[in-house]
């Protein structure tokens, strides 16, 4: 009985850890680059982008399934990834800026 309770507690702790991780992943936009250019997150994670440039940038899915508005300096954008896969995105104002989010 004690052992069963312990297992439940551990599962809950693991689940909490996953939620915590999912809440924190972020991508910095700096000097016309997404950093990191490759980010791996668990299913259900919400990724936040923060623009550190004077120039506005966007976070736009390659297939345009989602897009931010034009992000000014210090503006942020968040998107939740609910399905496993490899998602490429770019800046629709500066299309040489490309990066990838892998959802596992």
């Amino acid at each position, binding site marked *: 009985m004690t052992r069963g309770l312990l297992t439940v507690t551990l599962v809950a702790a693991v689940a909490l850890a996953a939620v915590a991780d999912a809440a924190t992943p972020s991508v910095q936009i700096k000097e016309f680059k997404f950093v990191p250019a490759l980010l791996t997150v668990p299913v259900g994670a919400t990724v936040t982008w923060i623009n550190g440039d*004077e120039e506005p940038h966007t976070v736009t899915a390659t297939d345009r399934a989602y897009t931010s508005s*034009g992000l*000014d300096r210090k503006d942020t954008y968040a998107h939740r990834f609910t399905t496993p896969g490899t998602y490429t995105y*770019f800046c629709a104002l500066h*299309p*040489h800026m490309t990066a990838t989010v892998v959802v596992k």
Partner: protein
Amino acid sequence: MERRRFMQCLAWAGTGLVWTARGGVLSATVLGEASAAGADFTFGQISDTHVGFGGEANKDAMGTLRDSIAGLNALEPRPAFVLHTGDLSHGQKPGAFDTLAGSLKAVRTEKIVYIPGEHDVAIDGGKEYLSRYGAGTYENRGYQSFDYRGVHFVGLVNVLSYKPGVGGALGDEQLAWLRKDLDPLTPSTPLVVFSHVPLWAVYPAWGWTTADGEQVIGMLRRFGSVTALNGHIHQVLQRVEGSITFHSARSTAFPQPAPGAAPTPGPMKVEAGQLRRLLGVREVHYVEGTAPLAVVERPLA
């Protein structure tokens, strides 16, 4: 075509210059020495107003826009029309198109002809822009041509097909339209072609190029006088290739660095006294018959 000169770049001295084009070759004189007398008509160019910009490079972009409008309104004779070569807004900030429309009501001219920049279409693929400015363009697509007193004007859209790794491009449909549009014209027809992103490869590393621009240039080569105007790079830059002269315009909002002169093409911060020398508008004088076009750069200070 017998006169051929490549890459004519001019350092900016901070005062106005007049560009007189004959057979595609430009010569420059100082603004005060130039005269619009004898010109059949004059038109203005305004570019990269970036309504909504609030960065450090210019804390008063609406103020410099007002000054640019005042510069246009001071022209004698009054410009027949004004071309806006794109980036009306700064990343489609809500209300920016309304604000710009309100400001440009003050321009003393018959009409303003618009083409979009990537800042006007990147967020929604051009929906809002075309709903406002698409009327009168080819199938509501934003590109258009018109004739004014013997000169054929063509406004191209090279910002609607941005995708990862590829910026400026016209696309096959627009190229086919352009071919049809130019086909009936005789080689002696003076052409003015305007786009937002430069048609030639100014600096591809910063996206200052049009992927299929060479196809456009190929269609223009048979004409004896072609003036190609663009915005996008927020600085004056000229290039002459055969009978085609390319001119990049200043922004009314903020300057950008010379190609490769900074790590990124972001807004360039300059000393307060310098800023107005790097912003401004342009006027073009056309004289019928001999077909010289005088392109005048007007900095705000």
